[in-house]
């Protein structure tokens, strides 16, 4: 077993008695005061997350000549400078090696932000597909804090000036924070208005302390982050999507551009023609029980699939989940029975997002 890695903020989490647990090879804070209290704080105020575990790569060079343009399911060269785009790194079979965001920093410069657990593999896969340019893993030197919640804009402008207030969704700006160059991006994983801040890892602690001085900000752990992301229907890599899942099965075709070349394209076109063997569905439970990973999804004829993510939604007051079923069972409004050992609950296939009241685009 590889040794757990720690973020630069680890001692701060321990000092405020966070519950720590392994996540993606890292020793991460799962909760501070409590998952539901932190979730509520994020929906109503502003929550601060230590996301230093995520991976960041830098590419410098000609996107087309160097091969970066063909690496992902979306075009990098068509991202306007100062904007970011979400999509996938696929294998030859169309399976998702990772979901990621590319930030277009300059004409010939892009930052790629990937999941922690997959970071090392992503780096070698991307590198093997490039034939030019400079490609570096800057994860160890890069800190990342997310501030999310309806008050996050006011907190950020109070701390760093009014300029940030103009930033639209999925746009970022490079600015000086604590004497260093930082990237502030209007993105997140909660469905709320918020920012992801990238800065030198050595400055992450200072930024953490600075933001927490604002009374509207409280720390939130990965437990709350999981509830928040599921309420808005975002997939979690390793649970809802992985190398055995294609974007078509995961109902994420909107992030695949078939007008360009990318590894896995032929497999996806084939699957488009033949039809998917299973499809992602979202469902709401009738009652407060929580669906959990691997629980069976059943209809009259028996099992039609299984749960990949589930939780009790504090905003909806019922259990919610994502899973995969046979395509013919993926019908909005269709009833599902969720089963595991003695546990049985009734649910209904529904549309995403589960929760629509977030401040994301405000």
């Amino acid at each position, binding site marked *: 077993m590889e040794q757990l890695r720690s973020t630069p903020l680890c001692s701060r989490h321990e000092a405020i008695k966070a519950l720590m647990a392994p996540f993606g090879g890292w020793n991460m804070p799962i909760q501070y005061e*409590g998952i539901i209290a932190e979730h509520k704080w994020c929906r109503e105020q502003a929550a601060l997350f230590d996301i230093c575990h995520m991976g960041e790569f830098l590419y410098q060079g000609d996107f087309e000549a160097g091969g970066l343009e063909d690496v992902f399911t979306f075009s990098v060269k068509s991202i306007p400078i100062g904007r970011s785009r979400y999509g996938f790194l696929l294998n030859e079979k169309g399976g998702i090696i990772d979901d990621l965001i590319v930030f277009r920093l300059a004409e010939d410069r892009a930052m790629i932000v990937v999941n922690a657990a997959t970071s090392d593999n992503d780096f070698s896969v991307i590198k093997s597909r490039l034939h030019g340019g400079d490609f570096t893993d800057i994860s160890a030197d890069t800190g990342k804090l997310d501030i999310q919640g309806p008050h996050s804009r006011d907190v950020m402008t109070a701390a760093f000036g009014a300029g940030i207030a103009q930033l639209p969704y999925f746009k970022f700006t490079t600015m000086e924070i604590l004497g260093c160059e930082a990237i502030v991006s209007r993105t997140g994983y909660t469905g709320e208005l918020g920012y992801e801040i990238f800065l030198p890892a050595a400055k992450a602690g200072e930024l953490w302390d600075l933001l927490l001085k604002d009374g509207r900000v409280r720390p939130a752990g990965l*437990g709350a982050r999981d509830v928040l992301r599921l309420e808005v229907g975002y997939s979690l890599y390793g649970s809802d999507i992985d190398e055995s899942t294609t974007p078509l099965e995961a109902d994420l075709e909107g992030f695949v551009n078939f007008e360009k070349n990318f590894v896995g394209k032929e497999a996806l076109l084939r699957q488009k023609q033949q039809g998917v063997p299973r499809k992602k569905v979202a469902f709401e439970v009738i009652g407060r029980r929580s669906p959990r990973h691997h629980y069976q999804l059943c209809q009259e004829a028996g099992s039609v699939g299984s749960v990949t993510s589930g939780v009790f939604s504090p905003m909806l007051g019922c259990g919610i989940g994502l899973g995969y079923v046979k395509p013919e069972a993926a019908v909005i409004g269709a009833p599902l029975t969720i089963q595991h050992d003695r546990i049985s609950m009734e649910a209904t296939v529904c549309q995403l997002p589960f929760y629509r009241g977030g401040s994301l685009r405000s």
Partner: protein
Amino acid sequence: MSMYFTKEHEWVKVKDGIGAVGISEHAAHELGDVTFVELPKIGAVVKQFAVLGSIESVKAASDIYAPISGKVVKINEILNSSPEIVNESAEDAGWMAWIEIADESELKNLMTSEQYGEYLKTL
């Protein structure tokens, strides 16, 4: 009133042949935010250490075992809509059921408060 505990962290408080049953503060704390409690049915006959109900938190789902054999005569229905009471008051307002005790000699299979305190130190 005497209070006894199981190794699975249920408690029973005995008075006049009736045992009030719940989960310990330690268990509630370990579970974190409780989001659902499956209560037994009134009239159900349960055996000591057999499944009585279940409890779910944001983090986990676990069974609740009967600390004593007998018949369920009352359930704490408020937990259906406000399961968070288990976090606020696990060993009092967060009780789950009253069991009409079939055989008080089964209490010898349980730990006293002091023994349970010692047991927690070994975990």
